């Protein structure tokens, strides 16, 4: 452990602040305070786990998110905590040298290395929509993922297909878990993923030796166990009925609820409101734009249009909101029965008139008789 202590000293980090960091990490992962020493032990261990980070149909947003890491920072992650043996965006080697590096790790640490996947995998047209070193992403994933000890899908694309899988999914893009049935895949959706959830997951794995508890969509509960809406700093305005009606209006400037501007916080499970982004600085709702629901499967289709509460009715065009079509259903129903009533009246007009006349005659007769 001397090396690690040396490193802490080199970073000007006291033992005390290090333990504080560990307990903060523990709090984020919702583990009891008694676990702090175990977390510290996991971080101090000299056995930096090898990591192969593959990028397929990605925009590199998750890698950029990684570069914003602060606990530990990306420098510390790379030098002290992980052995990032393959990551196309940061690695020094290229071409054959890069491939060699990957294969060495896969052989030497078979069944042990951490495999992190960014970007969806196109299965259409036999996988030609994404190739690296002449091999398809599908083949690479099956090899790299198949021999990994832990698989983490970072971002919505690798978790559920994300943007490339949005309708009509031109390349047949899928998420990692669809191609690795039977393997445990930890999904860290988000567009991009919040790096603090990645470091939290890795530290959880190093600390407890197992993957964190996950929900039905393979998301760790410590990060995706609650709805944005239920944690939102603007929730009070929602319940009170204080809503932003126009961008830049009084309510918008006063931080009122963005519900009417299409915020998808009520439909999204993510820890943005508590964790926030860029070291707790802000997050979309705080900055005045509604949540887009980026941590939910298929959100590029289900959470859109972005500025409406609900998806449009499929097949009726951009302006076919649920309300308009719903109103049309009621209107059509009213029209059908109004017509039916009118036709019925017309068809029975003769009888009705006859009955009226007879009734009048009867009344007259009765009255006359009484007289």
């Amino acid at each position: 452990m001397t090396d690690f202590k040396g490193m802490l000293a080199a970073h000007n980090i006291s033992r005390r602040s290090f333990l504080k960091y560990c307990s903060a990490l523990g709090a984020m992962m919702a583990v009891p305070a008694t676990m702090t020493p175990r977390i510290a032990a996991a971080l101090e261990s000299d056995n930096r786990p090898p990591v192969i980070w593959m990028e397929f149909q990605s925009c590199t947003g998750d890698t950029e998110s990684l570069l914003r890491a602060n606990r530990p920072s990306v420098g510390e992650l790379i030098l002290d905590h992980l052995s990032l043996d393959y990551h196309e965006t940061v690695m020094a080697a290229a071409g054959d040298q890069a491939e060699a590096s990957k294969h060495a790790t896969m052989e030497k640490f078979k069944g042990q290395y951490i495999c992190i996947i960014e970007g969806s995998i196109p299965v259409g047209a036999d996988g030609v929509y994404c190739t690296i070193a002449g091999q398809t992403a599908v083949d690479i994933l099956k090899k790299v993922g198949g021999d990994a000890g832990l698989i983490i899908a970072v971002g919505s694309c690798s978790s559920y297909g994300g943007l490339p899988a949005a309708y009509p999914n031109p390349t047949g893009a899928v998420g990692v878990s669809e191609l690795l049935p039977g393997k445990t895949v930890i999904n860290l959706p988000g567009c991009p993923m919040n790096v603090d959830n990645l470091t939290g997951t890795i530290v959880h794995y190093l600390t407890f030796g197992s993957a964190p508890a996950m929900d039905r969509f393979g998301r760790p509960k410590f990060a995706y166990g609650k709805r944005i809406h239920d944690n939102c700093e603007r929730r009070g305005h929602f319940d009170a009925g204080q809503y932003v009606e126009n961008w830049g209006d009084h309510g918008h400037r006063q931080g009122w609820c963005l519900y009417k501007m299409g915020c998808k916080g009520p439909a999204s499970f993510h820890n943005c409101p508590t964790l926030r982004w860029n070291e707790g600085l802000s997050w979309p709702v705080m900055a005045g734009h509604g949540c887009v629901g980026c941590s939910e499967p298929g959100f590029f289709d289900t959470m859109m249009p972005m500025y409406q509460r609900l998806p449009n009715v499929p097949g009726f065009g951009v302006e076919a909101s649920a309300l308009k079509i719903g109103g049309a259903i009621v209107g059509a129903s009213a029209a059908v029965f109004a017509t039916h009533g009118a036709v019925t009246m017309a068809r029975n007009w003769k009888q009705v008139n006859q009955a009226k006349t007879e009734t009048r005659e009867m009344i007259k007769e009765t009255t006359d008789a009484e007289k």
Partner: protein
Amino acid sequence: MANKIVVDPVTRIEGHLRIEATIENGVITDAWSSATMFRGVETILKDRDPRDAWYYTQRFCGVCTTVHSLASIRAVENALNIQIPFNAEMIRNIIMGIQNVQDHMIHFYHLHALDWVDVVSALSADPKKTAALQQSISPWKFSSEKYFQGIQNRVGAFVKTGKLGPFTNGYWGHAAMKLPAEANLMAVAHYLEALHIQKEIIKIQAILGSKNPHPQTFLVGGMSIPIDPNSQNAINADKIAQIRQHIAMAKEFVEQVYIPDVLAVAPFYLEWAGIGGGHKNYLSFGDFPEGRRGYPNDFWMPAGVIMNGDLSNIMPVDQQKITEYVTHSWYEYSAGDGVGKHPYEGETNGKYTGPKPPYDFLDTDNKYSWAKAPRYDDKPMEVGPLSRMLVAYASGHKEVTDTVNLVLGKLGVGPEVLFSTLGRTAARAIETLIMVNKMSDWLDALVANMKTGDYSIHNNEKWEPSSWPANARGYGFHEAPRGALGHWVVIDNKSIKNYQAVVPTTWNASPRDPAGVRGQYEESLIGTPIADPQRPLEILRTMHSFDPCMACAVHLYDEGGNPVSKAKIL
């Protein structure tokens, strides 16, 4: 004897790039650049709400994470004829500005530096001499012997573990690595410092844009970040002070580290001022509107076209002259692959005809890339910081001219050296410098306008689709960190009918056109010496000087094509 080599994956870039090159007598004689990943975002955009498009296009790229959202909202604003409030214009400028600064910084230190810096050699450096070197080039605060000793120990301990992680199989000890050990150690220190600085300064985007990567406060018609000095939920004096602090931090690092580093390293690699020039055609769309008339008026960074390196003739940009070819791209045109199409008419059907994976070589005589071949006036163009700096320099832009002359003077060379691999890297540094100095002007303009009581951030007039014409089309341009970016949108019946983006890396990474003229990457590689074909570091240097961004480069609008599968309703 010609020898064909392949670099795939080209790393330390965004996305998936493959280079094939033939080498004769240690010099590259021909090259092919291939984009090997495709997503089809434009197909996905069809029939969606134009107001949502920016969120999709933003995901073209997570590195230049703001640029496609800006180009997209500008295209829709252009189509619907929306003028945005001055405040929103300034906020966009600040977001764009810091994007450029941070992106260039990451590029130089984390994507490009390892082409020039030998990390392993840093271990043999003398920390005392390194400290002296640092102190001689700038007043930067981290310059003590003890500091460099600490860095060296840290790297030493790291190397001793035997697990080099991302530095495994780097080009350490390569004949083309020429920096002295001390300069290498200093660069390693700056590599680590820049990792910290970049995540700090980009917080400006978190403040104004909610988060980074992929800020989320863009709106067609303005921005969604409220401003109000008397609200705790809006941009107020405190938030402005935070932004100022981050600008100051960026300025300090650029002035005291980035620029001095470029000036210190460049003399060791001056031969690269004669390599990698390529076609010498440069295109800049211009950007950063400063006046009250709003975009696209009163650009701070001028627009223009330079042909054949002729700086005396700056031509105006005419978007009508832009066409895209697919002769060597895995797409089909209905009217034959020999014709060029303007983006409005951009009709494309993806069709892979390359070798069946796994393959060793592409069929470079035919189609070989997912990137299309954009041409301006039928000429391949280079876009990026170099194009912007050259256009601004030749147009007599004061800040640019002064800074370029200063840098060239210090290096003792003329402007002709800019047409090169080194020139690209230098232009990027120069741009970062003038940009970081410009940022506070935009912030000041925003503050001054707030002072007048104008808190408007969004033009609501055309927000509701009911206020739109049935049909509209427009284009939006933006000068992204990697160069001239254009989005074209055709709106039909209030939804997107056609969406096309011609992005910087498509210009630069373009394959050949019908006339067989190479793209700029390909042309730039011609004549590059390769010391060791097994370790083609030199290819990386020129490629990295462009700062490739492949995910942006490849996209497709597929009107008649058959989607591979239907989306499930999730």
